[in-house]
């Protein structure tokens, strides 16, 4: 009992401290509410949302940013999308929804916040964190009504890409599919952004570039154990992954997934050696500097999530700097971020649940999808269903400006097509296979060699984190014997000297 109480108090305390840190760190919680006049009369509901930093359209676009699509649709982010949601919700349901919007920096940060007692109704973690939350039974399933395709306001079920839908139904935790608890938001793969002046396409199309001595200290990798582990696995299992009998086998995709999710102790130990090698070869383990370091020329290639790759290439274009994106031929990591409702927040409150589901649908409305995609650069899981807005936007962004024989037919049917005979093809610039379009909507071939990385169970988690610390920590064995001797001299002699000298003065002064 006492321990319980102590825990409770400590949680509150840590929570207070963490909250104040988080509030200061992330710019705080933004509270959006409808016009004050409407308050008092109408029913109110509070929706606490926690999302990634800079992962939603905040409006305030310039006039020239207005997006005019082929069919005349105009998309313009005037207000913060949260304000638009509040307005729409009031118009539709007559309920004032107070959106308390906060942000997190990493999945682990979110998980720690939740464990400290922060309560949210709707959060947007990555695939593996959704799995972890499902295992912990923290998440609330979506209502049946959410999946009703006849309701025109259910933009998510109507618009989600068939490919994504399939992944969300195929992947299960404790026998239950993801789709029951999670609605996708953004998705992508991982790959290498490179400077084609220094690195060839072939050199960039393998995880081994991280070990390539030709680019000694000129490549960066993410400072994140999961991404680093995946990339190192790509190198460690290269022979198997590139083996024809493996790639052409019938159950290639399942085997690939199994292979990339191997977290046995032996594998972890071997990956540790690979990562130590990588550490000695890369420029740094970066969290956010990779993009700018490419443009300033500090590095020639860096590990990147596809959404950030789009952003990096866009930014570089603005500086007249040409970058390309490649996905390693061994395999790639397919990832999602998705909305999940939390039991602790939603509770039995049906109004809250309705608001949360309406928010997911609002985010999935094609024009809002385009707003978010434009604003953050990532790829939405929404293809639009019957609505062509999202595909038109892809064409708007990537269709070749001039007709030319060199233009290529870029096939994105796997993502946009509902039926197998529907074709969605973008006539793109000749270099599209290495540029933003490729990062935004990877080809079918890339998708085929992509695997989702599961959450690590407790044992694997402990082992992998230990491995990561081993890689990153200074090893006492690295000190050469001669240096050891010198260090003793450097540390001990001054101490002795100070002691004698200082003691001496003290005696003299006091006498």
């Amino acid at each position, binding site marked *: 009992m006492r321990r319980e109480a102590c825990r409770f108090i400590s949680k509150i305390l840590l929570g207070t401290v963490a909250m104040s840190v988080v509030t200061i760190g992330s710019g705080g919680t933004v509270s959006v509410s409808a016009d004050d006049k409407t308050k008092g009369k109408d029913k109110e509901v509070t929706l606490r949302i926690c999302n990634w930093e800079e992962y939603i359209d905040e409006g305030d676009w310039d006039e020239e940013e207005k997006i005019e699509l082929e069919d005349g649709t105009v998309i313009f982010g005037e207000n913060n999308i949260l304000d638009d949601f509040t307005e729409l919700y009031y118009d539709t349901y007559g309920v004032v929804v107070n959106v308390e919007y906060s942000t997190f920096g990493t999945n682990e940060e979110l998980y720690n916040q939740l464990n400290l007692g922060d309560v949210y109704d709707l959060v947007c973690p990555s695939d593996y964190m959704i799995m972890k939350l499902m295992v912990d039974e923290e998440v609330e399933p979506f209502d049946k009504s959410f999946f009703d395709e006849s309701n025109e306001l259910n933009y998510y079920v109507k618009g989600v890409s068939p490919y994504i839908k399939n992944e969300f139904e195929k992947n299960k935790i404790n026998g239950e599919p993801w789709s029951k608890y999670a609605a996708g938001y953004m998705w992508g793969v991982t790959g290498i952004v490179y400077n084609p002046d220094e690195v060839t396409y072939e050199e960039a199309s393998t995880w081994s570039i991280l070990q390539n001595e030709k680019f000694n200290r000129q490549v960066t990798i993410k*400072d994140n154990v999961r991404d680093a582990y995946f990339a190192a696995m790509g190198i460690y299992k290269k022979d198997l992954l590139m083996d024809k009998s493996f790639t052409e086998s019938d159950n290639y995709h399942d085997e690939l997934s199994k292979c990339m999710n191997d977290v046995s102790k032996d594998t972890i130990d071997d990956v540790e050696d690979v990562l130590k090698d990588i550490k000695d070869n890369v420029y740094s383990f970066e969290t956010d500097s990779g993009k700018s370091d490419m443009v300033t020329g500090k590095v020639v290639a860096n590990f990147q999530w596809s959404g950030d790759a789009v952003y990096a290439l866009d930014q570089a274009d603005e500086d007249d700097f040409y970058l390309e994106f490649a996905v390693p031929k061994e395999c790639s990591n397919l990832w999602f971020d998705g909305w999940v409702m939390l039991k602790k927040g939603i509770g039995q409150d049906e109004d809250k649940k309705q608001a949360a589901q309406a928010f997911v649908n609002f985010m999935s409305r094609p024009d809002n999808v385009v707003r978010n995609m434009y604003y953050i650069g990532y790829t939405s899981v929404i293809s639009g269903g019957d609505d062509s807005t999202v595909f038109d936007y892809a064409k708007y962004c990537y269709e070749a400006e001039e007709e030319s024989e060199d233009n290529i037919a870029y096939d994105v049917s796997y993502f946009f097509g509902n039926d197998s005979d529907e074709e969605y093809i973008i006539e793109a610039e000749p270099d599209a296979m290495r540029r933003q379009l490729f990062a935004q909507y990877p080809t079918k071939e890339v998708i085929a060699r992509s695997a989702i990385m599961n959450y690590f169970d407790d044992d694997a988690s402990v082992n992998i984190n230990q491995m990561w610390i081993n890689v990153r*920590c*200074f*090893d*006492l064995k690295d000190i050469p014997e001669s240096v050891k001797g010198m260090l003793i001299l450097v540390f001990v002699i001054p101490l002795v000297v100070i002691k004698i000298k200082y003691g001496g003065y003290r005696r003299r002064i006091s006498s």
Partner: protein
Amino acid sequence: MKHNSFFRRYLGIPYIIYLVLFVVMPLFVLIYYAFTGRDGSFTVKNFIGFFTQSNTLGTLFYSVVLAFTTTVVCLLVAYPVAYILATSSLKKKSVILMAFVMPMWINFTLRITALKEILTLIEHNLAFHPFINSVIGMTYDFLPFMIMPIYNVIMGIDKSLTEAAGDLGASTLQSFTKVVLPLSVPGIISGVTMVFLPSMTNYVVLDMLYNSTYIMGSLIGSYFSAYDWHNGSMISIVLLVIILLMTALTGKKDGKGDGKKKEAYV
């Protein structure tokens, strides 16, 4: 008079609340986590782990070497500056001093970003000299903390002491080594504590200057982000004890120095 002191006592309340809420209580939380395992039962495994794992020891070693080097460099740069500023008869002393302290008013990540570009110009590729870069970055960051206390202490030394040393036949060098230097030791010590301790844990500088090796701060952070609050807390506690021991050791001398200074003023 009585009313006055009664009122004064209550002025301390905000600070005590602050102290209890944000210093004392979190400390107990840390201790709680440090001595429990994942299942919440009491254990000293984390404590033993600190001293038996080569990782923590290696990191401790690396941090100490880094912090030590930074402190020495800071001291070597700061002392002459503080000495010259304090003893010169320049009229605009405070302006020059301001020039050293002013960088502190600029956000430190911004400063390190600028430093990163400067160092890149010089070294071309920062990744080959992570240790030296970290020392430079930390020195840049913490230099004012070393200059200020030394400057203040030297300013406080009675001029007549050096004059007396001169009258008694000491050369300028002798009067420096035998009078000014010993009397400025309290300033050096408080400068050293203000530089040494933070540079053992300030991993942001390392991150920003592309040093991929962990120091104590980043090691604690990595445990926390791996949901292992117990080992993270233990490392914090051990580090805290080391720091306390060091301040206790230096504090003794510091206190005596202060006493002497006061006597000099009397």
